[in-house]
């Protein structure tokens, strides 16, 4: 049990009422999504690694279910039940338990069962305004609960996408790097591969295919690959078709013939990812970094600045807010603005609250297309511990 004593349980309940009061006053509708959720959606969105952190089980009908590891996906599903098309503006708030398997055993700061109080805003008109409102509401709620001091850290995955788009490289490399963004080691290895000679890319591909495939003639290529399989007597089993395999082979062949990524471009990407600065100095730092490189991400920086201005208007102290270019890398469903709050007295790996923008999550959960979405959750046991700690 997350609250071992009635006293602690009541303290959490009282705190939750305060938090929910602030959320509702900010226009969020209180909802209570199911604790037991279909495992499919989570596994599809987060991937098979989720299984390692989530209580997944099979019911008597053989259906795979899970105890919700957070309330964001359940709230998306609740919204989709009401509005199957997804793209309808709505603001929700919730308070309730979430469950995570802790491989090292449950501990104080990493319990297997904890209560989250949070907010989500779907299909809000202006993204930056919604981002700033989310932060402001979370700050108001934590303050109302009694938290005096905190440290805010922010990131923006939108800046990274803009950087990749602006850097000169074939589209397939962009896709590759974007895909690897969430795995820092693999990302670095991929960058290294792209700047070195590409002949390695062709190793293990039959020489006759390498010489005969022409990326400019995809239809011919499908026939060539089909003939190759036939001549070798290879029966193609499974779902992937010859044209899928051919498209992937053409990427490999194109990589093998491509001019390597300029060292300078790789450096720009790596240097960007190392930027850490007070939020109000971040833009200047990034502009310095890009000057003379030919990589221009002005529109994304303007968006970043506009959001900062809105945050400042909402009372956020930008000089004491940390920007980290790399922040957000561990949470694959975030797509733009990300943030977390640390509280004094808590372990730095245990943020008291966090959230961000996840515009593609609703689509993955069943909506017909992407839906603008931003949200945040407070880890309520940690919040209570932080408040009680400062009162002592």
């Amino acid at each position: 049990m997350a609250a071992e004593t009635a006293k602690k349980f009541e303290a959490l309940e009282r705190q939750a009422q305060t938090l929910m009061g602030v959320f509702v006053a900010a226009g969020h509708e209180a909802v209570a999504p199911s604790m037991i959720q279909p495992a499919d959606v989570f596994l599809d969105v987060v991937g098979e690694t989720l299984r390692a952190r989530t209580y997944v089980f099979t019911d008597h009908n053989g259906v795979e279910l899970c105890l919700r590891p957070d309330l964001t996906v359940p709230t998306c599903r609740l919204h989709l039940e009401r509005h199957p098309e997804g793209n309808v503006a709505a603001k929700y708030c919730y308070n309730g338990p979430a469950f995570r398997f802790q491989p090292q055993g449950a501990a104080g700061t990493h319990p297997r069962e904890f209560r989250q109080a949070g907010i989500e805003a779907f299909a809000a008109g202006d993204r930056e305004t919604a981002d700033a409102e989310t932060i402001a509401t979370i700050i108001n709620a934590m303050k109302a609960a009694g938290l005096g001091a905190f440290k805010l850290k922010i990131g923006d995955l939108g800046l990274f996408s803009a950087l990749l788009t602006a850097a000169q490289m074939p589209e397939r490399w962009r896709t590759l790097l974007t895909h690897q963004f969430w795995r820092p080691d693999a990302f670095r290895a991929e960058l290294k591969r792209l700047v070195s000679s590409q002949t390695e890319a062709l190793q293990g591909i039959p020489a006759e295919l390498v010489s005969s495939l022409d990326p400019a003639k995809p239809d011919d290529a499908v026939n060539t690959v089909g003939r190759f399989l036939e001549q070798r007597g290879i029966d193609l089993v499974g779902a992937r078709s010859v044209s899928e395999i051919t498209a992937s082979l053409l990427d490999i062949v194109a990589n093998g013939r491509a001019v390597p990524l300029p060292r300078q471009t790789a450096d720009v990407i790596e240097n960007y990812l190392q930027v850490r600065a007070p939020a109000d100095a971040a833009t200047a730092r990034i502009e310095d970094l890009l000057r003379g490189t030919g990589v221009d991400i002005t529109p994304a920086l303007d968006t970043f600045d506009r959001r900062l201005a809105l945050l400042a208007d909402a009372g956020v102290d930008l000089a004491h807010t940390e920007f980290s270019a790399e922040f957000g890398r561990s949470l694959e469903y975030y797509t733009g603005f990300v943030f977390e709050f640390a509280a004094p007295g808590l372990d730095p790996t245990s943020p008291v609250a966090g959230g961000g923008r996840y515009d593609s999550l609703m689509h993955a959960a069943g909506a017909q297309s992407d839906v603008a979405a931003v949200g945040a959750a407070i880890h309520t046991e940690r919040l209570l511990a932080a408040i009680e700690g400062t009162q002592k």
Partner: protein
Amino acid sequence: MTERLVLAVPSKGRLMEQTSALLAAAGLQLRKTGHERGYRGEIDGLDGVEVTFISASEIAAHLKTGRAHLGVTGEDLVREHMADTDDRVTLVKKLGFGHADVVVAVPSGWIDVRNMADLDRIAQPFRRIHGRWYRVATKYLNTTRRFFAAMGVTDYRLVESLGATEGTPAAGTADLIVDITSTGETLRANGLKILDDGVILKSEANLVVSNTAGWTPGTERTRDEILARLGV
């Protein structure tokens, strides 16, 4: 009688025959007690040993929880059953039989997929085209998850397969598999190939000591006697 060492031995097939032969050659003759089809036994001339005949997979589970002190089973099963293998058990001797590699195998027609990095590369396009992640059929759920995570492959779905795993891609229930193979012949017959870096584990039968079993001076003496005869 309270201090008997529990020795778990495979209950059937080649693995049982080879284990019996190996023990017999070391002067440890297994003998079933009670019914011939029963699952309990003793070792001739060595008191304080209770032999239990169970499946190789159950042996791994018993060594993990300490219900068996000593057992003979495949390293693949030991590693599959516990994430903290080296804390819970000690693999004291490779026995030279029961060889099997745990491998990642994909359809031979996937000439664009040579290694795990390629497998990762096709994950997103596969999803775009088929509206789902590719499925990996296996009975080695934990082993697969650990290996894929270590190789940076995260966008897939696991499908538990309890038999005839190599037939699942052709049957359409999975797209690739993680399974054991000794010669690769069955894989080839089913239109599959092993990825270049897809050998997860080169497994064979091992003599395994449980670290979690309740060891007493008596059972430790018996263990040392058995290990000594087996030349450990």
